[in-house]
């Protein structure tokens, strides 16, 4: 990394499938434009780099006011998926499949592949030490390309002058 180059850092704190994508999409765009990229995974965000979890991220229809029936191809306008229905077994899996299919249709790669693209493009990935300790994880649990487990202080040092986006 050069001193004068633009640098964007993302803090990924969420492990839901829909919340995995913002940093991936923007990070990839940044790399494509020659901007340095650092991604710090903390708390639930660790699911995105957890080798056992990354292929099983989900989106739950309960308490998601944006999830409308029209997303399932039923043209009911503003009618949402009732929360009461959302609690039925299989509804989260159903919503997840729906989203994955839609992503696939517009040629958005799955999270694991997307992360690899970012690593290959030069992004630096780090796991948050406190969350790692709390969840009793280690470097062995993470996908390839994660550089290190670092403290919040380390993150501050490595993102001096960077633009930081919290997700």
């Amino acid at each position, binding site marked *: 990394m050069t001193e004068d180059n633009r640098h964007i850092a993302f803090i990924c704190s969420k492990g839901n499938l829909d919340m995995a994508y913002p940093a991936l*999409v923007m990070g*990839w765009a940044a790399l*494509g*434009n*020659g901007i340095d990229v650092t991604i710090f995974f903390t708390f639930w965000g660790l699911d995105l780099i957890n080798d056992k979890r990354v292929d099983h991220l989900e989106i739950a229809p309960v308490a998601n006011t944006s999830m409308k029936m029209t997303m399932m191809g039923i043209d009911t306008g503003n009618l949402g998926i009732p929360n009461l229905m959302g609690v039925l077994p299989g509804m989260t899996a159903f919503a997840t499949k729906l989203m994955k299919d839609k992503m696939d249709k517009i*040629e958005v*790669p799955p999270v694991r592949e997307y992360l690899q693209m970012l690593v290959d*493009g*030069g992004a630096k990935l780090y796991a948050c030490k406190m969350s790692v300790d709390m969840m009793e994880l280690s470097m062995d649990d993470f996908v390839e390309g994660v550089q290190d487990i670092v403290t919040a202080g380390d993150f501050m040092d490595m993102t001096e002058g960077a633009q930081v986006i919290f997700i």
Partner: protein
Amino acid sequence: METLVFAGQSVEVNEEGFLVNPGDWSKEIAVDIARQEGIEELTDAHWKVIEFCRQQATETGSAPTLRQITTGSGITTKELFALFPKGPAKKVAKVSGLGKPEGCV
């Protein structure tokens, strides 16, 4: 819009430096644009990427995204970033004489 001279030929470029008319493009112009983008020499691997992009643009009407390039041309992401360092998305399109890629991936 302004006119720039690449390889002795005047061509129109937009405010970001992309060729306005892909038909103005030639291999000589590509070499000259690449040099201005910091790529001293266009190797066979560079040409493979450029030819793929030109081909794609002819078929689809727009410059391919980085992922479309890697999945379609057989060049890996690592290679692509090494061939066109510091911002391959714009550099590839510029050197190939195309507009900015329109996709996000």
